[in-house]
């Protein structure tokens, strides 16, 4: 077991090293949400109510792009290019490998969250987080659920050329409907109904409680429950549909 953990750590270190060498990955999963934060922050800079929506919204979007989008695309690339098949032929345990890969995405998510929190304090009048417990719990739950969903979604993507389209057809509607850029409560009813089902909405609700309102975890239990249900669904399909090699062969 200690051996498995050490191997997962080695894999994580390798993933970290490779991440910064791949400019497009670094840009899309890292800089883009920050760019959005500063653009929308600038647009709404005179309206604290809007800023109070945008900052947790961007925090949720960051979690989704660093986990769901990054894993859906990476796992597709690794599967279709044969890297997964190669790894499957070595004694590296699958749990260590996938643990290292997921930990890399989680690392990015937490770095992003830290940057957004810091920017909220320094530039957007949000102050320090009101409820650290909420931040840790919803950060962790959001990361785990969206990571699992990302791996599960990679099983649907037929080849690497299709990966950006397949990923964004989920990611882009999700960030709009889930209220990254506006308060969901102001949206039309049918959009609110859809938003109510999506996990990102509830991640953003939780982060909003953590960063802005300071509502207790007990108050947010319903949001947490929705995230956990999605997490279980995601984990089930992530494991069940997992393929170490391209299905074309």
């Amino acid at each position, binding site marked *: 077991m200690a051996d498995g953990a050490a*191997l997962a750590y*080695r894999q994580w270190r*390798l993933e970290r*090293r*490779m991440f910064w*060498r*791949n400019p497009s990955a670094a840009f899309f999963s890292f800089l883009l949400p920050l760019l959005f934060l500063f653009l929308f922050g600038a647009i709404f800079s005179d309206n604290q109510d809007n800023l109070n929506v945008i900052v947790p919204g961007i925090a949720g979007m960051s979690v989704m792009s660093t986990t769901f989008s990054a894993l859906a695309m990476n796992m597709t690339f*690794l599967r*279709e*290019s*044969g*890297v997964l*098949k*190669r790894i*499957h*032929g*070595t*004694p*590296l*345990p699958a749990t260590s490998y996938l643990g290292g890969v997921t930990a890399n995405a989680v690392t990015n998510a937490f770095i992003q969250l830290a940057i957004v929190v810091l920017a909220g304090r320094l530039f957007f009048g949000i102050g320090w987080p009101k409820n650290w417990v909420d931040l840790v719990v919803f950060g962790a739950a959001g990361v785990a659920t969206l990571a699992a969903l990302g791996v599960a979604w990679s099983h649907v993507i037929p080849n690497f050329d299709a990966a950006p389209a397949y990923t964004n057809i989920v990611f882009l509607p999700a960030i709009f409907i889930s209220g990254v850029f506006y308060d969901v409560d102001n949206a039309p009813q049918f959009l609110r109904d859809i938003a109510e089902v999506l996990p990102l909405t509830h991640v953003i609700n939780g982060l909003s409680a953590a960063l802005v309102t300071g509502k207790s975890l007990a108050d947010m239990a319903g949001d947490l429950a929705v995230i956990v249900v999605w997490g279980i669904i995601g984990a089930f399909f992530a494991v069940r549909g997992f393929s*170490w*090699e391209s299905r074309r062969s």
Partner: protein
Amino acid sequence: MSGPVGTTAPAILVRDLRKAYGEHEAVRGLDFEVAPGEVFGLLGPNGAGKTTTVEILEGYRARTGGIVSVLGHDPGRRPRDLRARVGIVLQSTGMYRHITPREALQHFAGVYPRSRDVEEVIAITGLAEKADAQARTLSGGQQRRLDLALALVGDPELIFLDEPTTGFDPAARRNAWEVIRSLVALGKTILLTTHYLDEAQALCDRVAIIKDGRILAEGPPGELGAAATRYRVAWRDEHGQLQLREAEDPTALLHQLTSAALARGEPLRDLSVTRPSLEDVYLELTAEESEEALHG
């Protein structure tokens, strides 16, 4: 494997191996053994079932039937101990793009319980020049060498090479052969697939010719030719026509030919007596099989 003293357990043992993909039977009852330290070749045209067979032995595919033992393990169960003792060069496989061969080798070396020295593996596979270039800048041949290097870095006892030189230019192929021979010198067992006859002839101790999921012939490449006992006699007749005869025993034919030529007072031009090469045997076997399939 506890065998009687003095016998060595085979590195690979295959009995009545079968694999079906739905209705299609890719492998239809293969039997072979590979002894430790031996180079065994699966030779056959594309679609013969070579890769399916090798991928079953590597643990990538489940078999439909039969018995398979690799280093005393059932590869279908994918025991980690077995994976640690086996090196795999797949027919086509990718690599991380943003990593250098040296980093990749160092990383994968750490995955094996006992690994070879990374610098040594780089030297053996001739990657020294490109050891610190990012993998995406490697040429096809260099990537293939990295594949081989990654298969060697865990110091495996048994190495699978699935079409290791397909797409190589002649010089690169000779280099690869040298590398493979150096592995043999280290006492490694090698199972390779190829559709190049010269490659099988140059590297393999024994070859199985495989087509449509069946073994058509098996033996040392030199003896496979000899086993087909017919001689091929070619000569130019008195009208200048090239003639070709096959005979179990060419003595009588040669006697007739030489006597007739002497009687005419002419030289017997373009005379050759050959035994079929591996290539002839291969073409003959694979062709016969196709005809059978047509009539059947």
